[in-house]
């Protein structure tokens, strides 16, 4: 039997719930997630340039097209489908919709997750820091203006609300 045919079993937390997957060892995390029905994770380029495939692994932003599924074994993965249950991500979803940060929507899941990763490590970022944090998520529709505005707005509201709910 060729080695790549040997399926592996992964146990990880997916959007807050314990999850088990069986897959070939070389499968990209992106392919695993989409196969599991999480079609909010998008493929834009397949080489880690556009960020449309970005997800959080242990709250760190990663391009799922450049990660092997087996590398999330024992870890926690958050996709856009898990945003509603996450404090920063849920606020960002509302802010993106309210502030015009969404046009065609294809970059949006990755962009919201990248913004969430930023606010988790830096709750009060200046615009330059926001732009730097999002520089790996390409948007062709908005020119980033209203995306930056949405992140700023979400960060203000989160800080005003204060503490964990």
């Amino acid at each position, binding site marked *: 039997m060729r080695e790549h045919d040997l399926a592996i079993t992964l146990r990880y937390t997916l959007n807050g719930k314990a999850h088990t997957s069986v897959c070939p060892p070389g499968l990209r995390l992106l392919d695993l997630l989409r196969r599991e029905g999480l079609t*909010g994770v998008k493929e834009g380029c397949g080489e880690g340039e556009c960020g449309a495939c970005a997800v959080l692994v242990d709250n760190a932003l990663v391009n799922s097209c450049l990660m092997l599924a087996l590398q999330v074994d024992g870890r926690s993965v958050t996709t856009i*489908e898990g945003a509603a249950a996450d404090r920063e991500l849920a606020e960002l979803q509302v802010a993106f919709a309210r502030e*015009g940060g969404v*046009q065609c929507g294809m970059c949006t899941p990755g962009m919201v997750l990248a913004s969430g990763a930023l606010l988790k490590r830096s709750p009060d970022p200046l615009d330059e820091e926001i732009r730097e944090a999002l520089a790996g998520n390409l948007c062709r529709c908005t020119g980033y203006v209203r995306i930056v505005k949405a992140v700023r707005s979400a960060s203000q509201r989160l800080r005003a609300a204060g503490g964990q709910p």
Partner: protein
Amino acid sequence: MEPLRTGQSAPRPDAWDKVTGRAMYVDDLVPEGLLHGVTVRSPLPRARLKAIHFDPAFDWSEVVVVGAGDIPARNCIPVLDEDQPALAHDLISHAEEAVLLLAHADPLVAEDARRAVRLELEPLPAVLNLRAAMEHAARGDAPIHPRGAVVKDIRITKGEGQGPWASAALVLEDEAETGAQEQLYIETQGMIAWADEEQVTVTGSLQCPYYVQHGLCAVFDLPPERVRVIQAVTGGGFGGKEEFPTLLAVHAALLARKAKRPVKMVFDRPEDMSATTKRHPSLTRSRAAFTATGELLALEVDFNLDAGAYTTLSPVVLSRGTLHASGPYRCDHVRIHARAWATNTPPHGAFRGFGAPQSCFAIERLMDLAAQRLGLDPAEVRRRNLLRQGDTTATGQLMLEPIALEELLDQALEASRYHELRRDFAAANATAGPEDLRRGIGLATFMHGAGFTGSGEKRLASRAAVELGRDGVVRVLAASTEIGQGATTVFQQIVGEALGAGAEQVLVEMPDTARVPDSGPTVASRTTMVVGNLVDRAARALRAALTADGLPLEATPATVAQALRARGAARGPERWEEGYEHPGWVVWDEDRYQGDAYPTFAWAVYVARVAVDPLTGEAMVEDFTALQDIGHVVNPGLAAGQVEGGVAQGIGLALLEEVQWRQGRMSNNRLSTYIVPTSLDLPPMRVLFRETPGGYGPKGAKGLGELPLDGTAPAVLSALDQAIGVRLTRLPALPEAILPCLTQAVEATHAGA
């Protein structure tokens, strides 16, 4: 319940699905029994196809194979001409031309199959770019296209006799060049097709469902009732999904028909970039005569576009470019000769601006040259030549509408602190140290004709409808596609306002040719103005019916909802449909290219501030002011979003985005090698609107979507003039071109010292 209104930043009804990841784009759809289709493409730009070899070591038993011989009716994608085949059969006319289609249930096996096909090709001499096409024709070499070297030729002549060339104080010559630009929608092209002998159904990422239907009908010889096209949520288009999806839909349908199973074809990024359409490269040679005080007396423009291997949309791209070539300026003597040249490259196609960015670039560079030669400020040269109400354009169109260009200019100069900064930068640049950024501020004044040219809208004869369902919900039925620009939102607002209803009562349906009438393509900055008008009229007709039922004119949204539910329950579904009415005064002569080119124009002034790093020649736009008059702003938030996104693409065109060619094929077809702006490459933007009545859309709205692509790159290059002291005339202006200008300047200073 809030009433919907235009003129407000109403929220997008599609935003929530997009921020939750629930929106289903074509690659998210997985029908039962799906096969994955791939395309075998020519590696050579021009060749005779001698044979197709299938590796005998490969197991072909489960692979569906489609070649030109499998095409049921016509091997042709009819656009404006019928020269483009769906699949090449003996002659290859461009690299990446589709030759064979393959499908398999496992996408990796489909890729294996693609690698197991060998095309036997006999290379033929190829014409690889615009300059080569012009030289080729000048030598009298055999043309590569049945129509000859040029697939479309347009001439505009205004003014009699020799004109004032001999007596002018200043005569200038200039040459401006722009390269191809890739639309780079974040969602690549994709289609799913179901087909048999009787019918074809496709769903996919597209801008023009009826264009796709038209192409499928021709290839399969089926009537429109048997060909159904449904738009999937589309992740950006910008023109790149105007005509190409028809070809992809035909391919997917051919495979589906042979396989008797649904077939999905979704491009990966490298294939999308190298095989689909791009902005037409251009080369413009101009001559202009000015008075000593900067008035434009005469203009001659030789405007050339690289059409690629097939005609596709090049005649209309050329047309729009030609009609914008003299800019928003008054001039009594204008001669424009425009040509679209055939080359052996993948056909170039629609990209936001559609020929106008190319010709605007040339005229704006020329105006900046005139400013330099005459010792005038670039803003002043514009000011002395701006069109006014009552002037005529190069086609002899009498400008009936009020034109607020001068007011826009004043406002833009003030908002951007143009004069003050221009002085400051001149002083700072003169004493700049070796690591001090060199700065410049520059501008562009421009316009964009809204809707299809001349009698185009009349020919389209667009229709749109509203339907009152049994549930009391009003469904907007138009073929206009939501591709991110906010068409759905704008229609919801327009219809809601006409009815006096809230958002809960108005639903804009996803275009499905089985449901919506042909509202024309989602292009040409026409959606709000032309189709918005149609849905407005249809909604008003429905409202009139409710009034006849007894609904008071001052009814609240809740009362309107009640009335809709009552009528819907009793008489639904009921449909009100409206058709396009061409303004009677619009008179256009297509043969002589004279008359009223567009019923209305959007007018704009953009100001850019750039900083150049003398160590590296890297240019950064630090600030951008975008001012436009678009008649009526239906949704200020969305309109600003359109400008911001358009300016971003324009900055990419100006400074970053270069398509590199090797043997007629895009060699930098990856996102790591084709450089679009990231969030760190773009400035904050100041976007302002003016609303001077005169448009033909609801409440006088005009088109907006493409406008920003016309003036952004010229404004950036104008600013670069001041920053580096050299006027560059090629796009993109890369650091490799900028740095030598600075080095030259520094050396000159050193030499002097």
